[in-house]
């Protein structure tokens, strides 16, 4: 049977072609570059929808191709170095998420980036980014995933540093690249370890070996934890989270695409992809759960005090990704993926809405906004719905997936009672914080009167339409996994009936907590008030300072890089200049003495050297042929 | 289309029939190596005679056509309609005193015309005039033609260098640069018929065109044909690519100092090459000798002279290009176009979507 899914490898091709066309010449026309990219992503999106449809009908595909059949390379190595793709529920879902969000964000960028000097370059990078991301999702073995994974990293570097003439943007781009590289190094080590142990890079084969018991601890645990390092870097989990807030220096559509919907989700996707391996290592599961839960809470607290709307959203993203990791860590992969699926839409919507108001007022500082509900009613409406969804209120999409995660944490078999209770409480606290900071942002931006001076100006339709389109999945996408439809998402994802059922008590508790958070935000910031926030800041000065300095993690890294490394380097330099150089200089002096005698051999004439070379070679040949020469004489 | 020629059917392949008869006769009276040697020698002699006739006919035709296009008569005094004008010219050239400049490097100066003319004549040994009708059919025929096409460059450089005249040196360098620049798209574009036919033997290429002339092998056949013609015109230094001998800039280019016999040889080589390019265009793209009703060799000559007419037409229509335009055309237009066309043809073949050819 020939299906669209059979040709799923075609999905990244249009965007790649768009990238090449822009690079090769379409860049001369910015408008053409933009619409070329949008058109290409649209094709990818349509194909992805087809693939999802077929996958829902039960199609499962895995193809591998030997990409460089070179005689002389062992067959097993060739097989390992094959590239291929698979189509399964996980891939199909991610394809739709990535291509749909990319499509809308790029449509939005056509308006948002209008008049930018690097317009064509921007779209070229975006097209390549989408290609890479689709590649991560399609790849069926670690080699393919890793190649696309690094390409995603490269594109994020290009896009965060899009305004590279600004030093902060350039620094942020470098930071993002280097920090994620740190995680990627672990990922590469993990791939190599698993390859050495199993002799293959194909995820499905390694999974079978883990299930069948050929792949055991400690290699199993160490391997998946190293792979998890890559996910920690990409998904900005503690302790490699430091790049994400800075990455907000990039254009807002970039933030929406990379830092909310797709690239950071790649880490979660990777853990979901390797979940069948991961679940055989309880220790690794615990690490993932603790890091996920910890990051969820930790990032949410930092979001409380930020003045920068995009940073609030960035912390929120880290926090939600922590949620997804937590879900995977407690063994509920489908709950994590479900949250990823919903989150992609409403977080993209929030970013694009934020971009809409930033585009209007020209600053990211929420304290210079206010009252914008009149000027940007569409953004106000859609962002409020998205914020409600993020806070987890019935019946929006966030409610269903967050609830599923909470149920999974509360009922997990993987952790002890104490750990389960702690993580559950942490998750609930995060719900409260999330509701609070989101509505703090909404009130500050849209409530009260405008505190800035920017004049009003109309918004191009390309920026409004994506907001409205994204509103639809923000409201309805949750029903796919809701108990109203029998947890269809989990069944689809895991291939059997969902393990976690809906629990009314937990739903009520979490809804109550979220409402409390919104109420507190209304109390403090309702109607655009800013005084109570300032008062709270003054009263809780030490805590504020701690949060404002982001728990001093950046300082710690700077100290490690600046002091510790430089200190060791200083010691090494002393050793080098005294001990090593002393020895080298001594030898050197001896050689100089000898050389001044021998230098007369060097005529500088290249032919002299060539003559010596040939004479030497001929002497050697003569020695080797001596028996023959003597034989000839005889 | 005529069916496969029976060897004895005189009208269909008169030369083949005669050759068969001579061979049969000789092998009856002589031991084995000699008949084939004699028959081959006869064929060479015939083609050599043919060269003289063809070149004279070309010179006459070109001058008459150009004359007509320029609204004048052209040669019309010697012989009926001026047909013997070329013979008169040849006699004039051969009886002129050969001048050798004092500054010239005499040996090289005298050798240069030979180095130019011999490869031009050698090409003729593989031209397939009809089924089974060529001096020899090499299985690397296309490559042989291309390799021989590269040799005259050296002769031109020799002529320019040895004349001891700066215009000649400049003309020689221009010619050499032009030849190697257009050689590359030429080599690439010739690969398209080779790819389509699956052989480099010229006869094989013609036979593969029984169903479809390669010029019609859409979508790349026509592009390749045009590219071949353009590169071919440049390769034989004809207008509008006749910069090496641009009178208004560098006198007569590399053959400024040649007169008499030497000039006659360059002249002969130029027309022999023009015919060879026309013949190769016919063979590679226009189905060679294939055609209905008429004997194959007639078809071959019809098509070849048609292509030659196009060359003449181009010459009298287009102005000479500037040197930078020439190089621009070679490296920035013809070469990429040829590369892309060859690449896409290969893709087309590997996907088996070439019209008119059987899937391989």
């Amino acid at each position, binding site marked *: 049977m020939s299906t669209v899914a059979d040709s799923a490898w075609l999905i990244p091709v249009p965007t790649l072609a768009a990238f090449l066309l822009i690079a090769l010449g379409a860049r001369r026309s910015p408008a053409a570059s933009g619409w070329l990219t949008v058109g290409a992503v649209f094709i990818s999106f349509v194909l992805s929808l087809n693939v999802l449809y077929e996958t829902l009908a039960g199609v499962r595909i895995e193809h591998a191709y030997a990409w460089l059949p*070179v005689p002389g390379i062992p067959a097993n190595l060739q097989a390992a170095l094959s590239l291929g793709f698979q189509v399964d529920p996980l891939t199909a879902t991610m394809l739709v998420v990535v291509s749909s969000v990319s499509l809308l964000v790029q449509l939005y960028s056509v308006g948002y980036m209008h008049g930018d000097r690097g317009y064509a370059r921007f779209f070229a990078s975006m097209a390549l980014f989408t290609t890479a991301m689709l590649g991560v999702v399609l790849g069926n073995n670690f080699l393919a995933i890793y190649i696309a994974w690094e390409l995603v990293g490269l594109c994020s570097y290009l896009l965060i540093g899009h305004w590279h003439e600004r030093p902060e943007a350039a620094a942020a781009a470098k930071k993002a690249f280097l920090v994620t590289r740190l995680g990627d190094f672990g990922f590469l080590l993990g791939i190599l370890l698993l390859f050495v142990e199993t002799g293959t890079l194909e995820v499905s084969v390694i999974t079978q070996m883990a299930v069948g018991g050929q792949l055991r601890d400690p290699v199993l645990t160490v391997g998946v934890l190293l792979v998890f390092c890559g996910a920690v870097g990409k998904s900005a989990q503690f302790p490699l989270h430091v790049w994400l807030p800075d990455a907000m220096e990039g254009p807002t559509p970039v933030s929406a695409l990379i830092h909310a919907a797709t690239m950071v989700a790649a880490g979660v996707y990777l853990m979901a992809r390797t979940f069948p391996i991961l679940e055989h290592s309880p220790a690794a599961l615990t690490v993932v759960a603790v890091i996920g839960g910890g990051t969820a809470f930790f990032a949410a607290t930092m979001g409380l005090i930020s003045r920068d709307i995009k940073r609030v959203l960035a912390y929120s993203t880290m926090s939600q990704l922590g949620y997804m990791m937590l879900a995977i860590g407690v063994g509920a992969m489908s709950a994590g993926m479900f949250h990823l699926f919903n989150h992609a839409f409403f977080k993209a919507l929030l970013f694009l809405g934020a971009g809409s108001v930033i585009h209007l007022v020209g600053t990211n500082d929420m304290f210079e906004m206010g009252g914008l509900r009149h000027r940007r009613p569409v953004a106000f409406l859609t962002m409020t719905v998205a914020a409600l969804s993020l806070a987890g209120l019935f019946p929006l999409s966030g409610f269903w997936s967050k609830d599923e995660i909470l149920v999974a944490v509360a009922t997990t078999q993987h952790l002890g009672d104490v750990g389960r209770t702690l993580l559950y409480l942490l998750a609930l606290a995060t719900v409260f914080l999330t509701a609070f900071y989101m509505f703090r942002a909404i009130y500050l931006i849209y409530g009260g009167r405008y505190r800035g001076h920017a004049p009003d100006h109309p918004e191009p339709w390309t920026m409004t339409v994506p907001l409205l389109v994204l509103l639809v999945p923000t409201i309805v996408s949750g029903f796919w996994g809701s108990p109203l439809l029998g947890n269809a998402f989990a069944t689809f994802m895991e291939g059997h009936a969902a393990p976690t059922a809906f629990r009314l008590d937990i739903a009520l508790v979490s809804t109550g907590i979220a409402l409390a958070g919104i109420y507190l935000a209304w109390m403090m910031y309702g109607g655009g008030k800013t005084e109570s926030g300032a008062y709270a800041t003054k009263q809780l000065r030490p805590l504020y300072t701690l949060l404002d300095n982001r728990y001093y993690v950046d300082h710690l890294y700077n100290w490690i890089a600046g002091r510790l490394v430089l200190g060791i380097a200083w010691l090494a330099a002393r050793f080098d200049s005294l001990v090593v150089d002393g020895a080298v200089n001594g030898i050197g002096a001896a050689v100089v003495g000898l050389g001044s005698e021998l230098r007369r051999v060097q005529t500088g004439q290249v032919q002299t050297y060539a003559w010596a070379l040939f004479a030497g070679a001929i002497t050697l040949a003569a020695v080797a042929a001596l028996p*023959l020469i003597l034989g000839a004489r005889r | 289309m005529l069916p496969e020629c029976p060897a004895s059917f005189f009208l269909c392949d008169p030369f083949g029939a005669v050759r068969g008869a001579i061979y049969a006769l000789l092998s009856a009276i002589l031991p084995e190596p000699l008949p084939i040697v004699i028959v081959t020698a006869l064929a060479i002699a015939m083609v050599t005679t043919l060269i003289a006739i063809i070149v004279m006919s070309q010179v006459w035709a070109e001058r008459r056509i150009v004359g007509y296009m320029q609204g004048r008569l052209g040669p019309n005094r010697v012989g009926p309609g001026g047909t013997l004008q070329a013979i008169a010219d040849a006699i004039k050239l051969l009886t002129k005193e050969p001048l050798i400049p004092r500054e010239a490097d005499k040996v090289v100066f005298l050798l240069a015309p030979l180095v130019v003319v011999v490869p031009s004549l050698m090409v003729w040994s593989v031209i397939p005039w009809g089924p089974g009708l060529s001096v020899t059919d090499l299985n690397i025929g296309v*490559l042989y033609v*291309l*390799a021989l096409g*590269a040799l005259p460059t050296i002769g031109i450089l020799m002529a320019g260098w040895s004349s001891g005249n700066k215009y000649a040196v400049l003309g020689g*360098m221009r010619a050499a640069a032009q030849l190697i620049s257009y050689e590359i798209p030429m*080599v690439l574009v010739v690969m398209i018929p080779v790819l389509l036919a699956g052989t480099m033997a010229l006869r094989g290429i013609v036979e593969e065109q029984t169903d479809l002339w390669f010029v019609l092998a859409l979508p790349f056949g026509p592009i390749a044909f045009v590219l071949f013609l353009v590169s071919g015109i440049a390769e034989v230094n004809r207008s509008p690519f006749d910069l090496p001998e641009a009178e208004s800039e560098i006198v007569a280019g590399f053959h400024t100092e040649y007169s008499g016999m030497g000039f006659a040889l360059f002249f002969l080589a130029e027309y022999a090459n023009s015919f060879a390019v026309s013949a190769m265009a016919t063979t590679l793209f226009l189905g060679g000798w294939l055609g209905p009703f008429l004997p194959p060799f007639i078809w071959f000559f019809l098509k070849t002279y048609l292509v030659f007419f196009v060359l003449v037409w181009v010459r009298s229509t287009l102005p000479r290009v500037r040197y930078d335009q020439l190089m621009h055309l070679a490296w920035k237009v013809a070469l990429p176009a040829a590369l892309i066309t060859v690449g896409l043809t290969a893709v087309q073949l590997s996907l088996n979507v070439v019209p008119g050819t059987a899937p391989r």
Partner: protein
Amino acid sequence: MLIPTDFLLAGAFYTFAATSIVGAIGIIRARGIFRSALFLVLTLASVAAIYVTLGADFLGAVQVLVYVGAIMVLIIFGIMLTPQQVELPDIGGPGQAAAAAFVAVALFAIATIVITTSQWPRSTSAAIDVATTQVIGTGLFTTYVLPFEIASLLLLVAMIGAIVIAREE
């Protein structure tokens, strides 16, 4: 009773071997560098003919196309672009010439002794009856695909390098 093909082939081989060696010596002995280049053309063309006698028809054509058509034109261009160098004495001092001649003769002597006294596998006297082009092409794209790719890379690097080195500032 002669076998004519073999006889002709042997005659061609000896003729072209002689011309190639004459050409090679001519490169060293010629008056003026331009003539050296012409002698090199003679050598290269003769060697191409020798390939044909050794059953490498494809290679012979490629030799003419690549060496004579491209490399030699390049070299002659180089000669023309470096004027005032043509008439200078082109051979090194007597010591250098003697040393060079000595290693060359020594090499040739050793090689000849080794070649003539070694036991070579009995060669097939029948000419190779294969479609050389096809066999070489298949070889290039299967067994030797890696060297082929590296050679392509080498050409690219050489091209870029030559442009960078020779370009006027």
